[in-house]
């Protein structure tokens, strides 16, 4: 089929992943229409996956440079407890809102500096280090106990929703609007600014990027700071949603974020992927979990199925690359 209709091939390449989401929704709507299509359930899917979406968007920028950031789950946890402590201490709420992203920027900066100044051989190592450091700090500042009860304004983004005439708790979650703004902003940044093009160039071919005069180190530091900032924002959402900064928050979510990016069609070798694909990857994982939940499939099976989806998604990527090189 490739070559027979280049337009169709290009369309499928760009939007095929969105079709997968649509097909999954149609299948679930056919199996369990009375639950899946309920406004409550669709709202649940959106709000349960908003913080993962932000983590995945940040992770995507890193993966475009052929990097990886294992520290996002710990960064999220650290941001959550820090902002919860600030909120409990009576810091004015506009400042509390900035705590999460600020922590993320700091962890991201440390990651970037470690990668570029210390010349550690792979971001895996630096971010594995900060994964542990940020988690340790999280336990240290909370003594391992959750910090609960946040100011209502701090909770707003994570918890509020607009009813739009639907019966509660259905509605448009405020977290979805934040995700949409972040996604559009990131799309613009990556596709319409020179810095964004440099990020893709580094992922495609770092040597060529360096030779063509791109300050690779500077771009990489910025990339990890963006990823950290998104992780901090994601912590703001989860803390708002749960009304708590709990020190175990976000353990292991870096792997969910990586999975969503990869399922969404971004290449692990850098240089390729789209914001839309990442959001689709998040939705595929979210809809899969929701569909299995409402059909009472055990949590153990869900893990197995998500593992299989990751492998299949990357295998499709491999096939696509082979097809591309044959032309």
């Amino acid at each position: 089929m490739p070559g027979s209709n280049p337009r169709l091939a290009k369309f499928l390449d760009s939007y095929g992943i969105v079709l997968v989401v649509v097909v999954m929704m149609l299948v679930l709507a056919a199996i369990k229409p009375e639950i899946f299509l309920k406004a409550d359930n669709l709202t649940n899917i959106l709000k349960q996956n908003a913080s993962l979406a932000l983590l995945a968007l940040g992770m995507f920028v890193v993966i475009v440079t052929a990097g990886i950031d294992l520290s996002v789950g710990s960064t999220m946890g650290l941001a959550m407890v820090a902002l919860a402590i600030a909120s409990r201490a009576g810091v004015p709420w506009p400042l509390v809102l900035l705590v999460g992203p600020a922590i993320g920027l700091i962890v991201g900066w440390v990651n970037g500096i470690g990668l570029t100044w210390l010349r550690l051989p792979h971001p895996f190592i630096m971010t594995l280090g900060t994964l542990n450091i940020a988690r340790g700090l999280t336990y240290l500042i909370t003594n391992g106990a959750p910090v609960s009860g946040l100011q209502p304004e701090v909770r707003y983004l994570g918890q509020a929703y607009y009813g739009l005439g639907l019966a509660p708790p259905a509605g448009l979650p405020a977290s979805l609007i934040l995700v949409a703004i972040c996604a559009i902003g990131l799309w613009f940044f990556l596709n319409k600014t020179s810095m964004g093009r440099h990020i893709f160039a580094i992922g495609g071919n770092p040597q060529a990027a360096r030779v063509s005069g791109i300050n690779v180190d500077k771009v990489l530091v910025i990339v990890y700071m963006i990823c950290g900032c998104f992780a901090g924002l994601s912590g703001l959402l989860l803390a708002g949603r749960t009304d708590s900064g709990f020190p175990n928050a976000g353990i292991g979510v870096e792997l969910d974020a990586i999975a969503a990016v990869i399922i969404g069609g971004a290449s692990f070798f850098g240089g390729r992927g789209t914001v839309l694909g990442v959001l689709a990857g998040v939705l595929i994982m979210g809809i899969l979990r929701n569909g299995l939940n409402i059909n009472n499939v055990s949590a153990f099976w869900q893990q197995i199925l998500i593992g299989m989806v990751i492998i299949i998604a990357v295998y499709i990527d491999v096939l696509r690359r082979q097809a591309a090189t044959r032309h």
Partner: protein
Amino acid sequence: MKTLLLAGIAIAAMCTASYAADTYVVGMKGPGAGNPFWAAVEAGAKAKGAELGVDVVVVAPPAESDVQAQITQIEDLIAQGVAGIALAPTDPNALAPVVDAAKAAGIPVVFIDTQGINEGVTFIGTNNAVGAALAADYMCKNLPQGSEVAILQGLVSQSTGQARAEGSKKGLTDCGLKVVAEQTAEWDRAKGLSVTENIITGNPNIKGIFGSNDNMALGAVEALKAAAKLQDVMVVGFDANPDAAKSILAGEMTASVAQAPENIGGFGVQALVDLKAGKTIEPVIDTGTVLVTKENAADYQ
């Protein structure tokens, strides 16, 4: 220079505390600092040690999931020839060989909080099935017959998670309530929230939710608040942690079940001293559970 520095650090690390032969050790699952439960176990053990006039040392791995660190700690304690070990195993199967090694070295061992798999080792702790049944009983007495209820399970791969899941289910079904959903939220507040959102979407008539720990129950409270259903649904948790006590006093959660962690530590030390003196002790010692409602929640803040 670098090598010297590293060697120095390694040696310094090895030269930390070593314990005398009349020291009883309480090996907890997680650090007492900040975790009120383990802090109370630690306090109970220390108080009992002072009362009996024996040295009590409390150790714990840095995190409850750090099985390897706990094994290492116990191995080191055996090498030091301590007088007895009261152990809360992070993973009963993984810890079984070192417990056998301690017994072979003539060191008395009891399990506290979490039962191990080694035969002939006394277990001292909360009977979680009894505690969960206490919660179920409370829900039965305060909900109309035949009401729909749900259970948020912990990790059912652990004995605590299993005992609370089974104890609550049996209690709720036996008294005529209808359990319409049983799902795991892995002890986690955020997952408790998500799972409850899904449960109330599928079962809008639900009247009660039992959370196998307070974290999940507090997550359920958030989901119900967002759905404006909190006044129609009773939420009962387990552990009576300070957050839950506050929530009960605020009229959000309805009840919780408290363990007696001071007893877990204290009874543990007592049992070791008894074993060392050659006495026989019961194979299972229940440290008791208490129902916490608005009346007594203030004691648990």
